[in-house]
């Protein structure tokens, strides 16, 4: 009996240890990013990092201003969100409030396949199909451009928004809709004046998670948006995002410990800060509004 009890304790500790690995992962990420960034900021002033308008760590004339990478990330993410939010929310409302049950359960997994496709495949698609297509009717689109990468990234994150928003709409109690229909409202009025506002926290969470995903997306932008860090908001031009820069350096021959090597960690910690903030906002929103109708 005593042996059994000890065994139970040992097992519990073992299981808890596995859980601790996830904590160690987070601590590891923070430790790695912070220590390497400290090395970076001991050589580059933080003022230059934040306000210099050029990012050229790999050239002879070196500048370490993160702004061009931020503007590149901002540009591709904005385009993606402009595509994904309207489409994703309309699809969610349609599937939840209008579509027949059979249609919904068939289409949802198919749309989710869009999210299962490896991102390198989306990069291929952006580079070989979407860019030539855009070039055929928009003058001045470069081979590598923010527009194509952003559009494809937008398609890629549609299912994130549509699925999570649809779940939020489905979680609403039936009585809400019945009350609205009872007052003589149409499906459209019920959907947009009752259901969407009631599920708004879930929908907002899905949008925030989609933004975080777009900011951190790497392969599509590395393959289709280019590697020219420049401060521009012209979507026809090539830009470089934070993630694409990390890929560029990783593919090259940068010696370990050099300042150029440390730049990817400075870029990484910037990326981490943005996604960490967005994740926490979404987690907080989810916790706060989760059980409103239960």
């Amino acid at each position, binding site marked *: 009996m005593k042996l059994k009890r000890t065994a139970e304790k040992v097992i519990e500790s073992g299981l808890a240890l596995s859980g601790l690995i996830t*904590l160690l992962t987070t601590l*590891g*990420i923070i430790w790695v990013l912070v220590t390497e960034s400290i090395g970076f900021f001991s050589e580059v002033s933080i003022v230059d990092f934040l306000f210099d308008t050029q990012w050229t760590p790999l050239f002879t004339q070196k500048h370490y201003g993160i702004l061009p990478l931020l503007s590149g990330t901002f540009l591709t993410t904005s385009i993606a969100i402009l595509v994904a939010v309207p489409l994703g929310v309309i699809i969610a409302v*349609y599937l939840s409030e209008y579509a027949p049950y059979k249609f919904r359960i068939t289409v949802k997994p198919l749309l989710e396949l869009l999210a299962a496709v490896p991102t390198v495949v989306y990069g291929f*698609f952006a580079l070989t199909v979407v860019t030539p297509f855009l070039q055929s009717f928009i003058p001045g689109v470069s081979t590598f451009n923010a527009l194509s990468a952003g559009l494809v990234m937008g398609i890629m994150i549609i299912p994130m928004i549509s699925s999570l928003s649809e779940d939020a709409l489905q979680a609403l109690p039936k009585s809400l809709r019945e009350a609205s229909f009872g007052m003589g409202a149409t499906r459209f009025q019920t959907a947009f004046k009752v259901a969407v506002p009631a599920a708004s926290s879930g929908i907002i969470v899905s949008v925030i998670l989609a933004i975080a995903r777009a900011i951190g997306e790497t*392969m599509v932008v590395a393959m289709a948006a280019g590697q020219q860090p420049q401060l521009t908001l012209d979507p026809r031009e090539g830009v470089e995002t934070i993630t694409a820069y990390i890929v560029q350096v990783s593919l090259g021959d940068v010696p370990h410990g050099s300042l150029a090597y440390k730049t990817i960690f400075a870029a990484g910690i910037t990326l981490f800060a943005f996604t960490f903030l967005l994740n926490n906002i979404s987690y907080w929103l989810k916790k706060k509004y989760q059980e409103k109708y239960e």
Partner: protein
Amino acid sequence: MSKLKTNRLIDSAFKYVGIACTLFGLAMLGIFIGDILIKGLMRIDWDFITSLPSRKASKAGILTAWTGTAWILGLTSIIAIPLGISAGIYLEEYGKKSRLASLIEVNIANLAGIPSIIYGLLGLEIFVRVLNFGGSLIAGALTLSLLILPIIIVGTREAIKAVPTSLREASYGLGATKWQTIWHQVLPAASGGILTGIILALSRAIGETAPLIVIGALAYVPFVAHSPFDEFTVLPMQIFNWVSRPQHEFLVNGAAAIIILLLITFVMNGIALYLRNKWQKKIKW
């Protein structure tokens, strides 16, 4: 026109807007697969699958890439599955109210949202440099394991949550200990759901490119890996490398390799979907 009529008109108009948007999403998936099939299907033959990479596009094959993907799949499974299931069991069955458990829970939500390339930076410092594994299979598998751990944990928890309390109570009533109950009752009952999560997580792992680029996996590896400490390449890396080249022939190779990668991904997702449906039907306690 009366207000009622306008409202009815808007109502049915939105129906068509909704259908159009949904079909647009599906059409994109269709165009996408169609385009890749047209570009790459003719390139796939036995030689393509069994040849080593080459500087000549017509001779190059994906042998090192798919064997690398198979290695990664195997190693990542060995590392991530036991850890993920254990952590899931702990959070759901043991640590319900403890502070540690709630800290881990917030943390997992956060980890799931960290971009994969950041995991690459972690792997580069810890596995490649500190543990000195270099750009080897084991460094890649460890990095990807950390990346998919949150997915497996969340999947395990959901599956365990769906097992009714009555099952546990019956087991305790017969004198079983907590672990005996978990091992003999809860886990078998939750196995379908756990498996679904695992397959989805592994399908994510084999499609990843960015973290492997960061840890220094090579695009050109002229030999098949024989041990976990060998250098490697995987299908997504090979695709990225081919697509980055200017020659059209390599683009065709890329499309052909994409077909193989998509085939693997879709089959895995199909199995996961099938299991989920079967499991959801079965679980009417």
